[in-house]
C-alpha cells in the first residue's frame, strides 16, 4: 500500500517535470542565459509555497501521517563542501541539461542517450565516495 503512494508520487512528479519542461535541456540553457522567466518562476513559486508550508508545519507542530516527526532535519553546517560541490554540480547541470530528477524522467520519455548521463552520474557518486576523505568539506 505504502509502496503505491511512493509510486504514484513518482509518476506525478515525473509528469510535472516533463510537462513543466524543467526536464528539457533547452529550458536549462535558457535559464542560465537569463532569457526567460519560466524556470525562475517554477523554482520561485515552488519555494514560496514550500517556505510558507514548512513554516506552518513547524509552527503548528504538524505530524506526518507516518512516523513521529516531519523529516525536516537541519543540514550539517559547513561552507566549502556546499560551495565546491554546488559549483561542480552546476557545471554538470548546464552541460547535461539535466539534474537527477529529470534524468529519470528523460529515461522514461525514451531518450536513450540519457542513460550515458545517468551512468556518468552514478560513476561520479562512486568516485566521490572514494575521494571523500581527501576533499575539503
Amino acid at each position, binding site marked *: 500500500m505504502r509502496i503505491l503512494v511512493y509510486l504514484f508520487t513518482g509518476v506525478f512528479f515525473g509528469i510535472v517535470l516533463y510537462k513543466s*519542461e524543467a526536464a528539457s535541456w533547452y529550458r536549462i540553457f*535558457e535559464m542560465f542565459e537569463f532569457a526567460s522567466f519560466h524556470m525562475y518562476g517554477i523554482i520561485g513559486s515552488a519555494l514560496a509555497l514550500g517556505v510558507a508550508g514548512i513554516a506552518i508545519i513547524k509552527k503548528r507542530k504538524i505530524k506526518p501521517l507516518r512516523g513521529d516527526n516531519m523529516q525536516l532535519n537541519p543540514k550539517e553546517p559547513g561552507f566549502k563542501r556546499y560551495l565546491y560541490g554546488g559549483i561542480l554540480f*552546476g*557545471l554538470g547541470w548546464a552541460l547535461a541539461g539535466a539534474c537527477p530528477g529529470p534524468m529519470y524522467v528523460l529515461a*522514461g520519455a525514451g531518450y536513450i542517450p540519457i542513460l550515458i548521463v545517468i551512468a*556518468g552520474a552514478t560513476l561520479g557518486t562512486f568516485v566521490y565516495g572514494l575521494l571523500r576523505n581527501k576533499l575539503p568539506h
Partner: protein
Amino acid sequence: MQAIIDYISQPWPWYVSGPLIALTMFILLFAGKQFGMSSNLRTVCSIGGAGKFSDFFRYDWKAHRWNLVVVLGAIIGGYIGANYLTADVQISASAVEQLDQYEIAVNGYMPEALFGNEVFSNPYFLGLLTIGGFLVGFGARYAGGCTSGHAISGLSNLQLPSLIAVVGFFIGGLVMVHLFFPLIF
C-alpha cells in the same frame, strides 16, 4: 475528456508547475520522508557493492528503497508525459539565436545532436554527456544534495547550507554556459 487531455497536453505554465513540485515535497513529508532525488545514486552504488571500496556506501541503504520506487514512478511519469501529453518546447527567441551560433537546432523536447541516437556515433558528444553526468553525480554528493534536496527542500526549510549550494549551482551553470559553451560547441 478530450478537452481535458488537450488542455494538459500543452506545456504547463510555471505557476502551475512550481506549486505542483512543492506539492510533491509535501506529499513525501506527510509520508514521513524527505524529498531528494540524487541520494538514489548513492543507494544504487551501495546495492552494486560499492561498500567494498568506501565506507561512504556502507549504510542502511535498505531504508532508502522507498526512494527508488519514486524513481520508478518518475520514469513512468516521463513515459506518460512523452507519449500521451506531448508538445514541443518553445524557448525564447534570444536563446534560440544563441543556440543557432552553436549549431544546436531547437526542435522537439531535447537537442537531437546530444540526445538523438546519432550521438552514439559521435565520441565527442558522448564524452560531453558522460562528463556532464559525472559532474552532476559527484557534485550532488559533495554538496549533499541536488536541485530537489537543496533548491526546493533545503531552501524551503531556510537552510543556509542549501543557499550556499544553490549559489554554487548557479556559479557552475553560468560558467558552463557563458565561458565553456563557446569553447565546447
